[in-house]
């Protein structure tokens, strides 16, 4: 597949360590668009859309923010979340104006102990670009894992 210069630039940016340690692609040899396609297909198989995942992540982030880095229960007895912010901003690697606070939110299932961490930039990249990051990237979000941790126990209308 022939890439346009813009696509080439984007891939180089996602693989570089300019914005984050290890880059957004980690050790993944697939093309970023393949990553997007395969993750979208996996989500579809699980009956969800990327917008729903991003919305849930945002909702949990908002729930945790006022507790200033301390755990708060998000689903009684099932899920807790905490959110920590750091000074400074991160920019989206796509070529558009997009600046996000450095904030890491972690959700933990109280029944299984499974944990998932994401940043505000992850929420944006999932919602706007369908990008869950490459395998091996520090903040790679596995769609299956995200669905298990974030949506378990929710009814269809709550998703």
């Amino acid at each position, binding site marked *: 597949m022939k890439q346009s210069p813009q696509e080439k630039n984007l891939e180089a940016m996602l693989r570089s360590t300019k914005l984050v340690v290890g880059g957004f692609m980690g050790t993944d040899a697939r093309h970023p668009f393949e990553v997007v396609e395969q993750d979208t297909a996996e989500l579809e198989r699980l009956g969800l859309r990327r917008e729903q995942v991003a919305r849930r992540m945002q909702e949990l982030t908002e729930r945790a923010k006022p507790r200033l880095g301390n*755990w708060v229960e998000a689903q009684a007895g099932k899920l807790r979340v905490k959110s920590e912010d750091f000074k400074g901003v991160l920019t989206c690697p796509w070529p558009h104006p997009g600046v996000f606070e450095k904030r890491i939110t972690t959700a933990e299932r109280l029944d299984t102990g499974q944990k998932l961490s994401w940043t505000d930039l992850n929420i944006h990249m999932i919602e706007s670009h369908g990008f869950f990051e490459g395998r091996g990237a520090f903040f790679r979000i596995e769609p299956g894992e995200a669905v298990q941790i974030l949506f378990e126990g929710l009814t269809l209308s709550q998703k």
Partner: protein
Amino acid sequence: MAAFIVTILIISSISAALAALLVLCEKYVVNYGPCKITVNGEKELNIQGGKPLLTVLRDEKIFIPSACGGRGTCGVCKVKVLDGAGPVLATETPFLTKEEQADNVRLSCQVKVRNDIAIEIPDELFNVRQYESVCAGIEELTYDMKRFSFELKNPPSIKFVAGQYVQLFCPKYKGSNEEVYRAYSIASDPNANNRVDLIIRRVPNGICTTWCFDHLKEGDPVKMNGPYGDFRLSQSDAPMIFIAGGSGMAPFVSILHYMQNTHNNRKVKYFFGGNTPKDLCLDSQMKEFEESLEGFEFVPVVANPPEGENWTGETGLVTEAVQRQFKDLSGHEGYLCGSPGMIDASIKVFTALGMPEEKIYYDKFA
């Protein structure tokens, strides 16, 4: 169809070649000649045009804070350009508010000096120096915080006001091919001017903190520049409340040293918040300050004391502890250092308790 694809290929190759040529011309051929930068209406710098303002100023030993090394991704390098900078670029707008744009604020790494320009910078930036130092000690304070001591070599001493910060240079290392600068508040005694202590909290997968925690060793050479910032004690004698969390401890250690040095017995209550007792640190140093500073009291606050552990101190969020202990703060000054979320929450509590906004001090630059 084949002819159509070939035509597209030819056109895109020509455009790519032209774009590359333009970049090369800009770099090697175009000569903007000598240009003049007027600083604060007084100082004139005669320089060769063609480079970004941030770089030109650095060559002239004027250090503008910057966190991304001039790649236009941090928004830290703001400078007022009164004249000669041309229109604001698309790379700058995400970082500039409407008010800043109206006020001629620009990202100095994005503004290329092509003609004479006039800029305005805070006077204190003229005191900023580049320092070569050696890492002289690393002390573990908590599971995710360390105190790093740097012995200054060249120049061998620094003059700073307690509360100011330095920009630490983070070199390339395995997994990070970029050189970056990050801001860290000075945590040492301003009288011990041959060294700089920093208290650094690990940020998961952070460029600079990963380097500090996993790569930096005692004896390593380290570069930094500074001092920057106007976070400092006011000259009044109003009672004060300090609030910090995590690495927000750093500037207050320096400020308390300064108060000790100047026999300042202003009343101050320092609320330091952590999730569990494991997030608290420098307990014995705080006790020493309590003994030597008549008006000083340290109040550690733990949000979630683990069951079974005998925690008798304040619990909940730091802001909740302040609300429990004070009903009226109209005569107090507030000093804040920590995460942006903690700063916002503390400002809300302070103002709700009557503290005037202009009496609330923190590093505005985030």
